[in-house]
């Protein structure tokens, strides 16, 4: 999927693509609900798939950098701590 960027250069997640992905997920869930009474939890083998289709490179390079930034920001901002306080205390 081509990702759009915001003016600051960040990936814009509130784009048509993000919204379409959420809608697809909701539609898939609705179809599952019609087909059977219980929810379906997907067990993905996509990690293995990524290895065969070359996408693993993105996960290991761009993905690792992004994940490291997210972890750093989580610690610096105390976002997890604040979220837990808000949700559980």
């Amino acid at each position, binding site marked *: 999927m081509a990702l759009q960027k915001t003016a600051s250069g960040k990936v814009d997640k509130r784009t048509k693509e993000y919204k379409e992905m959420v809608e697809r997920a909701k539609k898939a869930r609705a179809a599952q609900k019609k087909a059977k009474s219980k929810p379906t939890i997907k*067990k993905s083998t996509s990690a293995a798939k990524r290895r065969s289709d070359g996408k693993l490179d993105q996960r290991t390079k761009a993905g690792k950098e992004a994940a490291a930034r997210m972890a750093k920001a989580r610690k610096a901002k105390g976002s997890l701590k604040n979220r837990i306080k808000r949700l559980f205390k």
Partner: protein
Amino acid sequence: MKTDKKVLASFLAAAVWADGEYDEFEKEFVTDLAGELEIKDLDDVINKEIAATEKMDEDAIADYLESAAKKVASGEGEGILTLCLQLMCADAFLATDEVENFFAFAEILGIDEEEASTILDEYVDEEEDLIIED
């Protein structure tokens, strides 16, 4: 948090299954989470839950989680759902399968789709580095 750690771990383990990998960033998130929740052995408990559910098919996992959901402390379902989302996104990617599982977790936890959508949208807005993957 009043919910038992094994119950929390069963949902977090199921969150790991969405992309099939319990990677270094997810483990780092679990370490941070364990510190905040003061559950020293959370990683061990999650690993046990991953092992326990490894051979289960998708329906069996849903049954397993439905049973666990009954033991979630009152008012903590939204929190558990949010932590599952954070764990799924710890590797910086959010994929369609993960979003589908997120809504399935919401249903199992008794959270309606609109409320779950709000949790998802707010989280995605907050995480600037998150990569949306088709």
